[in-house]
C-alpha cells in the first residue's frame, strides 16, 4: 500500500506540474485528498504490519498519520482560497500544489518508515519540496528565506548522516547489519555506548532543524514566515511532528541502554534553551506570522521536556504534540484572512479586527487561549501533565524556570493578539478592506474544537495508540 501511495503521489505531482487546466488541477487535488484519507484509514487497520520491508506503521506513526490527514484537508481548502485570492498563474499554481502534495507524501513515508536510513531519505525529500513552497513568491525576501532553510537543512541532513555512520560503528559490536528500529531496539543493550553517544548527539542535532529546537531552529522560522500561510501551517505542524518522530525513535533506542540519563540531560538542555529563545523573541516580536512560528518552538520545547523527564511526561509529550498539530495550523490559516485585511504582517498596521471579520477574530481569540494552554484549551491538559511529571521527578528548579518563561510568553503573545483585536488601527483605508467570508473560518473552529475534544474526551482508539507508543520507551 505504501508503494502504491508513493506511485500515485508521483503520478499526480507530475500531472499537476505539466497540466495547466484549472479543472484538472483541482480534481487532481481532490483525488489526492481522497487517496490520503484512504491511506490513513488503511494504515490504521493494518497497524504493525511490515510493508515492502522498510515500512511499518506502528502506533506512533498511525497517530501522527491521523493528525496529518485531519490537518491536510483544510490545508488543501485554504490553499485553494489562497490561489483564488492571489491571482496566481496556472504554472505557479500547478507547482505549488505539486510540491504541497509531495511534501505531505514524504512526511507520511517518514512517519511509517521502520528504517533510519529510509527515514533519512524522505527527510531529504521534505527539504526539497518545502524549499519550493517557501520560494513560491519568487522575490528577494523569499529567496533569503529559502536559502537559509536549504543551507541549514543541508547541514542538518549531513549531521544525521554522520550520526548514522557512528551508529553503524556502534552496531559492529552488536553484530547487526540493518538499521531497522526493531532490530536496534532489540539489541540496544549490546550497542557500544561511546559510539551510541556520538550517534545520538549528531542525529538529535540534525532532527532539531525539522522539529524546531535549539540549536537549529532558525531555519524553520524564516521558512514559516515566507511560505504561503497554508504551507506554513503544514511546516509548523506535521513537519515538526516528523522531527519529533525521528527524535522519539532514536531516544527509544537510547533509553534501553546505560546512557539514558546522559541523553535525557541533553534533551532537557535543548528544551529549556528552546523555551528561553521563544520567550526572548515573543516578548518583543512585531511580526504576527513569526510570532506563531516562535510559539511552535516553545511548544516543541515543552514536548521534549516531557519526553526527557519520563514517567507520565512521555504520555503528555505525545498528547501535547498531537494536540498542537490542530491548534497551530488554525492560527496560520486564519493569518491569511488577517493579511488580506491589512496587507501587512506587522502588528503596527493592525487593529480592530473584530470590526472587519467577526468570525475570524473569535478564531484568533480562541487560538490564543489554546496556544497559551489556558483552560479550556486542550493543550492545558497535556502541559499540566508535563508539569506533573517534572514535579514527580523532583525537578523543581526546571519547573520554576519554565513556568516563569511561559508566563512571559503569555504576556508577549497576549499583548500582540489583543492589540490586533481591540485597539484602533491607524492608517487603514476602510474602503479597501475586502469582505471576508465567515466560511473561511469554519475549518479553524473545527480544528480548535478537535483539540479540546481529543484532550477532554479522547476516543479510546487514540488513547490506546498513545499508550502503545509510550511502550516504546518504557
Amino acid at each position, binding site marked *: 500500500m505504501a508503494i502504491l501511495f508513493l506511485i500515485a503521489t508521483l503520478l499526480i505531482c507530475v500531472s499537476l506540474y505539466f497540466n495547466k487546466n484549472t479543472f484538472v488541477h483541482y480534481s487532481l487535488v481532490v483525488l489526492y485528498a481522497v487517496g490520503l484519507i484512504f491511506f490513513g484509514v488503511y494504515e490504521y487497520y493494518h497497524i504493525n504490519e511490515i510493508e515492502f520491508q522498510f515500512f511499518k506503521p506502528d502506533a506512533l506513526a498511525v497517530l501522527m498519520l491521523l493528525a496529518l490527514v485531519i490537518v491536510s484537508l483544510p490545508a488543501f481548502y485554504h490553499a485553494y482560497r489562497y490561489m483564488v485570492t492571489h491571482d496566481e498563474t496556472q504554472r505557479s499554481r500547478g507547482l505549488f500544489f505539486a510540491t504541497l502534495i509531495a511534501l505531505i507524501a514524504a512526511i507520511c513515508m517518514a512517519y511509517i518508515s521502520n528504517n533510519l*536510513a529510509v527515514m*533519512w*531519505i524522505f527527510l*531529504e525529500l521534505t*527539504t*526539497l519540496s518545502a*524549499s519550493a513552497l517557501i*520560494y513560491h513568491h519568487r522575490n*528577494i*525576501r523569499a*529567496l*533569503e*528565506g*529559502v*536559502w*537559509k532553510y*536549504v*543551507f541549514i537543512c*543541508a*547541514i542538518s*541532513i*549531513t549531521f544525521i*548522516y*554522520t550520526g*548514522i*555512520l557512528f551508529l*553503524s*560503528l556502534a552496531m*559492529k*559490536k552488536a553484530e547487526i*547489519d540493518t538499521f531497522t528500529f526493531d532490530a536496534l531496539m532489540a539489541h540496544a543493550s549490546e550497542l*557500544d555506548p*561511546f*559510539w551510541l553517544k556520538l550517534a545520538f548527539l549528531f542525529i538529535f542535532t540534525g532532527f532539531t532543524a525539522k522539529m524546531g529546537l535549539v540549536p537549529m531552529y532558525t531555519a524553520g522560522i*524564516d521558512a514559516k*514566515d*515566507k511560505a504561503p500561510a497554508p504551507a506554513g501551517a503544514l511546516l509548523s505542524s506535521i513537519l515538526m511532528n516528523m522531527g519529533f518522530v525521528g527524535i522519539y525513535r532514536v531516544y527509544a533506542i537510547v533509553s534501553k541502554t546505560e546512557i539514558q540519563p546522559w541523553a535525557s540531560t541533553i534533551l532537557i538542555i535543548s528544551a529549556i534553551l528552546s523555551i528561553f529563545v521563544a520567550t526572548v*523573541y515573543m516578548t*518583543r*516580536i512585531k*511580526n504576527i506570522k*513569526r510570532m506563531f512560528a516562535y510559539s511552535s518552538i516553545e511548544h516543541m520545547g515543552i514536548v521534549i521536556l516531557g519526553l526527557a523527564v519520563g514517567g507520565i511526561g512521555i504520555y503528555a509529550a505525545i498528547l501535547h504534540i498531537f494536540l498542537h498539530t490542530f491548534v497551530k495550523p488554525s492560527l496560520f490559516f486564519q493569518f491569511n484572512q488577517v493579511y488580506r485585511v491589512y496587507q501587512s504582517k506587522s502588528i503596527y498596521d493592525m487593529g480592530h479586527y473584530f470590526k472587519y471579520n467577526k468570525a475570524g477574530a473569535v478564531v484568533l481569540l480562541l487560538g490564543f487561549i489554546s496556544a497559551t494552554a489556558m483552560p479550556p484549551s486542550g493543550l492545558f491538559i497535556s502541559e499540566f501533565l508535563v508539569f506533573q511529571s517534572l514535579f514527580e521527578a523532583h525537578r523543581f528548579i526546571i519547573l520554576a524556570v519554565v513556568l516563569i518563561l511561559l508566563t512571559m510568553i503569555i504576556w508577549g503573545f497576549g499583548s500582540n493578539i489583543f492589540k490586533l483585536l481591540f485597539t484602533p488601527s491607524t492608517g487603514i483605508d476602510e474602503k479597501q478592506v475586502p469582505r471576508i467570508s465567515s466560511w473561511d473560518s469554519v475549518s479553524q473552529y473545527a480544528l480548535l474544537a478537535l483539540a479540546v475534544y481529543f484532550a477532554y474526551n479522547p476516543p479510546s482508539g487514540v488513547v490506546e495508540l498513545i499508550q502503545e507508543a509510550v511502550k516504546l520507551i518504557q
Partner: protein
Amino acid sequence: MSDILLIIFAISLLFMSIANRIFTYLNILIFQGFILFGVMLLTLTEINTVNLALILLETIVFKAIAVPLFLKNIVKRNKITREAEPFLPNFVSLIIVTLIIVVTIMLSSQIKDPNLDKTIFVVSLSNLFTGLYLIVSRKKIITHVIAYLVIENGVFILSLAVGNEMPMLVNLGIMLDIFASVLILGIFFNKIGDVLQDPDVTQLKNLKD
C-alpha cells in the same frame, strides 16, 4: 598508502584556512576530490565491482570535476570579487584550524575501539569542524557553499570506516552528495545569481527579529 593520502588531505585544510582567493578554495576542493578517489580505491577492497565503479565515478565526476568547475563558472559569470573576505585574519584562522586538528587527535586517542581506523576518524572530524568554522568566519555565500562541500568530503571519508561491511552507507553518502549538488548548486545558486548581482551574505539579512 591510504594513510599518507589522508594526511595530505588534512594538510589541505590548513592550506584552505589561509587561502585568500576563491579560486584557491576551488582548486583545493578539486585536489580533495582526487585524493578521495585514491583513498576509495585503496580502502574499499571488499565490495563488489559494479558498486565500486559507481562510487569511484561519483567521486571523480561530482566531487572533483563537475561541482568545482560549476562553481568556477558561477564566480566568473556573476563577477564575484576574488577575495574570500574572512572576518578574521588568516593567522588566527590557521591557529584555529590547527587547534581543531589537535583536539580531534586528542579525542581519538581516548577511543579504545580496535575496529576503527583512527586516521579516518581524525581526518573526517577535523574536516567537519573546519567546514563549520569556515561557514561562520567567511562573508560570501559562495564560500559558505564551498565550506559545506568540505563538510561533505569529511563525512564521506567517515563512511569509509564502515564501507567494506556496509556499502549501502557509502551509497547513501552519494545520495547526499547529489542531493546537495542539485539543490544548492543546480537550481538554487543560479537563482541567487539572477536576483542578486553580488552574492554576498550581507545582502541576505533582512529576515530577522
